[in-house]
């Protein structure tokens, strides 16, 4: 039995190795992002809402000119980064096309809370034309769509450097060791003090990279806090239930477990 249990215990890590091997083989030409101690990636970690608000500021002022955030609506910001009144004002800053009206014409109106974040380009071709042929991807799910997404994002934003000797980078591309292939269309975007935070936090490039990573992690998993809270409840409940059912099972089985099986041979020859 102990051998069996031991092997079963071994098979767990082996299974994990199987799963993770499938992941590690990806993008082997890119440098692996270091593991950063993101508090929100810990089992019971939550988002820092002040950081989310700063991260939104970075997204709005730096990223939004090229990258969409199409799955996030202004209503999603309420109670997360902004109050309802602030989010409403943010939405109203942007004109959205609506209609048709009673004459059949489309018209422009100020944004509402129910509107989704505006797309920076009309379509992919327009985006490519404006960006030297590169297509800036939508960021709504970015941290879920990359291996160790938040680590990757931070490392990528901070990872711009001179290409090592012998590496030729085509015109219009930039060297970044964390990007698969090493040559990325996006130039370095974050520089110290390029924006000013509401709350007076010094806007160093690493501070902005960290804040925008947190904001985009929220954008990818807005349900995370609720999920972990419910998970904690489920785990506590199930642990107590497991203890109770284990006791009941043992209790019911005592009769069987304490039997004595006696073999009485009829006759010895």
């Amino acid at each position, binding site marked *: 039995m102990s051998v069996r249990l031991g092997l079963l215990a071994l098979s767990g890590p082996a*299974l994990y190795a*199987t799963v993770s091997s499938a992941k590690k083989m990806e993008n082997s030409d890119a440098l692996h992002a270091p593991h950063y101690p993101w508090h929100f990636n810990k089992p019971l970690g939550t988002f820092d809402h002040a950081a989310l608000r700063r991260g939104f500021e970075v997204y709005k002022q730096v990223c939004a000119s090229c990258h969409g955030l199409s*799955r996030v609506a202004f209503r999603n910001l309420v109670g997360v980064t902004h109050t309802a009144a602030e989010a409403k004002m943010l939405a109203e800053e942007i004109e959205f096309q609506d209609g048709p009206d009673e004459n059949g014409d489309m018209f422009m109106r100020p944004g509402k809370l129910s509107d989704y974040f505006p797309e920076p380009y009309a379509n992919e071709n327009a985006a490519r034309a404006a960006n030297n042929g590169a297509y800036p991807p939508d960021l709504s799910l970015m941290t*879920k769509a990359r291996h160790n997404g938040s680590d990757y994002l931070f490392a990528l934003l901070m990872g711009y450097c001179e290409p090592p000797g012998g590496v030729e980078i085509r015109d219009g591309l930039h060297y970044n060791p964390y990007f698969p292939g090493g040559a990325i269309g996006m130039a370095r975007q974050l520089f110290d003090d390029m924006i000013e935070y509401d709350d007076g936090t010094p806007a160093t490039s690493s501070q902005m990279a960290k804040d925008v990573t947190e904001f985009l992690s929220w954008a990818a998993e807005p349900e995370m806090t609720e999920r972990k809270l419910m998970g904690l409840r489920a*785990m506590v409940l199930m642990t107590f239930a497991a203890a109770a059912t284990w006791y009941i099972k043992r209790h019911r089985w005592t009769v069987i477990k304490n039997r004595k099986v006696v073999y009485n041979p009829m006759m010895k020859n």
Partner: protein
Amino acid sequence: MKLSKRLSGLSHLSSALVESSLPANISYFWNFGSILGICLVIQIASGVVLAMHYTPHVDLAFISVEHIMRDVNLGWLIRYSHANGASFFFMFVYVHIARGLYFGSYTKPRVFVWSIGVIIFLIMMGTAFLGYVLPWGQMSFWAATVITNMLSAIPWIGQDFVQFVWGGFSVDNATLNRFFSLHYLLPFLLAGLVIMHILALHKHGSNNPMGFESHMDKTRLHDLFTVKDIHGFILFFLLFSFFVFFYPNVMGHPDNYIPANPLVTPAHIVPEWYFLPFYAILRSIPSKLGGVIAMIGAILILLALPFLHTAWVRSATFRPIHKFLFWIFVGNFLILGYLGGAPMEAPYTIVGVYSTVFYFSYFLIINPLVGIFENVMILLFSFRKRIKC
């Protein structure tokens, strides 16, 4: 009149589920069957709710899944349960099958139970594959392309047959629609087969770790095994909750959060982790048709297992050589899983060939020969004993 008297099938099922008795000595490894039943219930229940919010269209499928995750009340819980439920279904079905291999549950008189089980496993794999395509992410699309292309290996009709399956000249909207339809249909087929599996099992009762006839020492199912099964369910839900609530995406692939794009091929196309051992077998055979035959054969060979069983003794408890080789087989299966996710280069390819050869020779050569060897040893020992007397 009692309902069960008016519906004779119902009384069969209720007697199989409630009134039957089971060997007193079966271990917790016999809990996996009932837990798999719970898995099927979770999948069907969460799947029916997901289908209420999902849109099977190439332009909307990905967005509708995100709509479920963000806007539907507890939609994330339903979807993560469904996605992780599939992984757990396979994890537990592998243990369930391994338990059958170890204790010889496939031998007479349970050949029919085992055969239905293999069919269930096959349909499960088909259903899981169809379901993986539905979110229409990059891995969905490319897995669908790679797997359906395997059908083109069929001689003569291959290419026509693939286009028939696609409903066009590539994986497209028609493919997504029919995959959704079939993904909704097959679980009910599975449920029917599961009922057959239970009824067929009831005919002769469960096997047990000793491998003796199950009528030797029986105890009632209710309440003894009811409380044991419920305890198993709770432990299952504990583990399940851990993944659903804290690590919901660990068993998935990040590329599936990128919308499907027929113009961009991912760097490595890998199937879901539970297909990796069979994917490794597919890739170990140099020819396309040979690979497909080997992969399907790797599952169908389980059907031949009862007829390849030569040992007089059923359970590994009393078969030390078989016990050792069984764990080698399990290790080899995990290695195949590792190789399925590895790139196609040395040393993975050559190890894959050896692992595939071992996989098949375990069933076709090693297992029968070990059985015969053990039988000879039994004969020799009993002979020696008789001389001593």
